[in-house]
């Protein structure tokens, strides 16, 4: 389903991933097709074990599909070698993980500049950009802090800044608020909202309906397949006042 006026940034056709042999076959992702338009926020919801994380890993090249086709910015990527996938991750995809996966021995700004350094940017340019990104996520004053000195929400924000380091086409977030309390979740929500307003394409996998509610489009997954798709933009029918008990 494309938005009007634009090729999809990310497109999957009949994507499949299975584990195990013939009698213990597990279809983690079962014939999934989707398209993400530019600037869209897409949420994939489902109970644990439904395959949504696996799907995300496939979309970002962290794992190889067992079948199907995958296109990023029009280029076919499911057949790429490991080196090709690495290049892809360097330039076009940014990841945000549930466990943050920050380097414990690096400060916030050193963590954020890492993708740029890996892509071959000059150290000073990378440092400048990293500082700028940290400011964007509201952590300019914590640039020199180690992850152990940051709260969960702050760590995830650093991770988001890191994902933005190489100006990716799409950001893939896997249960971004999975390890966070409600306050920290709010911080991340705010950040995602900001990114969305700035036009960043975002695919989020979550079982938390609050995170899912930030999306433009919500896909529900069960047992490796899509079972539902909802467009969330366009407002609800009811009034908030009723929800609060102000009527009647």
């Amino acid at each position, binding site marked *: 389903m494309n938005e009007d006026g634009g090729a999809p940034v990310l497109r999957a056709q009949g994507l499949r991933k299975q584990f195990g042999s013939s009698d213990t076959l597990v279809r983690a992702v079962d014939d999934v097709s989707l398209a993400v338009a530019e600037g869209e926020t897409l949420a994939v919801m489902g109970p644990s074990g439904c395959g949504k994380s696996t799907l995300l890993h496939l979309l970002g090249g962290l794992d190889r599909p067992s079948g199907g086709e995958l296109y990023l910015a029009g280029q076919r990527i499911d057949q790429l070698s490991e080196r090709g996938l690495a290049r892809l991750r360097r330039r076009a995809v940014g990841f945000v993980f549930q466990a943050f996966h920050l380097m*414990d021995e690096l400060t916030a700004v050193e963590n954020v500049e890492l993708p740029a350094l890996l892509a071959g940017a000059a150290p000073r340019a990378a440092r400048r950009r990293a500082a700028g990104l940290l400011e964007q996520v509201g952590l300019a004053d914590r640039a020199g802090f180690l992850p152990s000195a940051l709260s969960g929400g702050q760590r995830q924000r650093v991770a988001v800044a890191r994902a933005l380091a190489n100006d990716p086409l799409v950001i893939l977030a896997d249960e971004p608020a999975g390890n966070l309390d409600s306050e920290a979740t709010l911080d991340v929500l705010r950040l995602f909202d900001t990114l969305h307003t700035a036009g960043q394409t975002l695919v989020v996998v979550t079982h938390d309906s609050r995170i899912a509610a930030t999306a433009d489009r919500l896909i529900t997954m069960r047992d490796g397949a899509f079972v539902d798709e909802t467009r969330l933009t366009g407002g609800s029918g009811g009034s908030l006042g009723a929800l609060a008990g102000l009527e009647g």
Partner: protein
Amino acid sequence: MGRTLLIGRLTARDLRRRPTQAALLLLAITAATAVLTLGLVLHGVTNHPYQQTRGATRGPDVVAQFSGPVTPGPFGPGSPPPGQVKYSPQAIAANARRVRIVASELIHAAGVTGHSGLYPVASAVAQAGRRLAAVVAEGRDQTAAAVDQPKLASGHWVSAGGIVLERTYADALRVRLGDRITLNGRPFRVVGTAVTAASVPMPNMCYSSCDYGLPFGPRGISPRHLGLAWITRAGAQALATPSDPLGYVLNLKLSDPARAQAFVNRYGHQFAQNPATSAAPSLTTWQDIRNVDGLLIRDETAVLSPGAWVASLLAIGTLAVLAGGRMSERIRRVGLLKAVGATPGLVTLALMAENLILALAAASAGLAIGRLAAPLITSPGAGLVGAPGAPSLTLPIAGLVVGVALAVAMAATLWPAIRAARTSTVSALAAPVRRPRRRAGLIRLSRHVPVPLLFGLRLVARRPRRALLSAACIAITMTGVVAVLAFHATADEKLYGGGTGITDPVMARDTQMLLVLTVVLLALSGINAVFTAWATVLDARQAAAVARALGASPEQVTAGVVAAQVLSAIPGVLAGIPLGIALFSVANSGSITTVPPAWWLVLTAFGTLLAVAALTAIPASIGARQPVAGILQSETA
């Protein structure tokens, strides 16, 4: 009882789960203990065979050597080199008379209970095939002597035209029974080989028997190529020439053998006081001969003990690498044990039980191997009676070896075990991974270098202690290898004796032993390097996975891990060079050490680094191709 059972079960399960690791560990400690056993056993062997020989041959307590009419000592002050002065028959006869008088004095001296001799001694150049050597040929009777009757190792005793060679000498000349050998051009047939306690066998014979005016120097024959032989009296007399007259030897038995040195002092003093008696003999005690003879074995222990040290250190290093690698698992086990009520002592024991058991098993294996290998080193070529068949594996030796094996196991695992046992139960159960260290300087530096080096530097900075351990192990390996190189550089000359084709038995055996040692060393280092590489790759797995998720290619990551290993190996390689040369100098105890040529060292250094790189690259590249998702999820589990 229950506790022992628990520990037993845990250990058995551990060993079953990781059989390869346990097997390799066993190998490492066994190699170390085998070398150690060999060294210790040989050390204790020094005395025995000589005593046996002395008993079997009715060895003398004092040996008196008389030269022909020249001052004792081949190149005494003012005396002409041998073979260049012709002596008149009168001078020779006068000398012979004086010798008989002095001999008679000695025979009737206080404390002398028996004698054999005077035997005429001819010095000559021996030629067997193309091989040239110097020989001291004693003229003997057919009948057995009362003192010093050499014991036959093969063949039969002297006969007309026949020559009996001292056993080491025969081996060195590579002659067998029935071969022909010429002395000063006169042909003789080899009829037997024998051993004696009255002289030090080749190659150290010159320590006790260089006073006959021997044909060294101009002929280019090394003093180490001097050997002993026995022929008939007639044969000896036939060999004498006006320029190379006969010398004489007299063997004495004392009432009190222990005080042989006192006897020598008394008579040496007396002869020195009377310079008119130019027939002054040179007196040697049986203890002197025994000590010099022991040099042979001592040379070998000199090679073996540093070798044993190096092997033991490497074994410790390997164990330490392994111990460090399973820290988190160990800490978790501590937490579990404590939570069910185990005391800290029991906990420590449970942690170390596996390694201790392996160490014990390895020690027994090493003892057995060392004991079996010892005769291979002591019997051939040693001019002593029989095979010291049972180089005694005494209880103290066994105890020491087992002790060392246990110490090796404990040294490597005690520190982590104590630390693990001291952590509080809660934190142990939470099992945090050891926090990587932060080295701001290195991190800053790494930003300016290409990606693989960036990765490598940061990996080293994360775990400085592991890098240090790697460097230490490489240093130990290099030390051993460089010591061997230094030996070769020093020994080339000694060994090949100027092209005479005669093998110097000690050098030959040393080289053999060194070859074995080098192979053991390289095998141990290989195991160690594999373990270290493995541990490094495992440790870097998560960081590598994250880096790859951020866009690093598998090649960059592999190169980074290899770079980390090579970076930590470089100081080890550099340190090993001077240490190796120093080790060899110590082992060589004072003799001149030749520093190996620079290109050998450079080649070895590069070879080592290349080996480290290759051994790391294989597990690293395998790991770098696995899908990132799997690694990241398993690490957070």
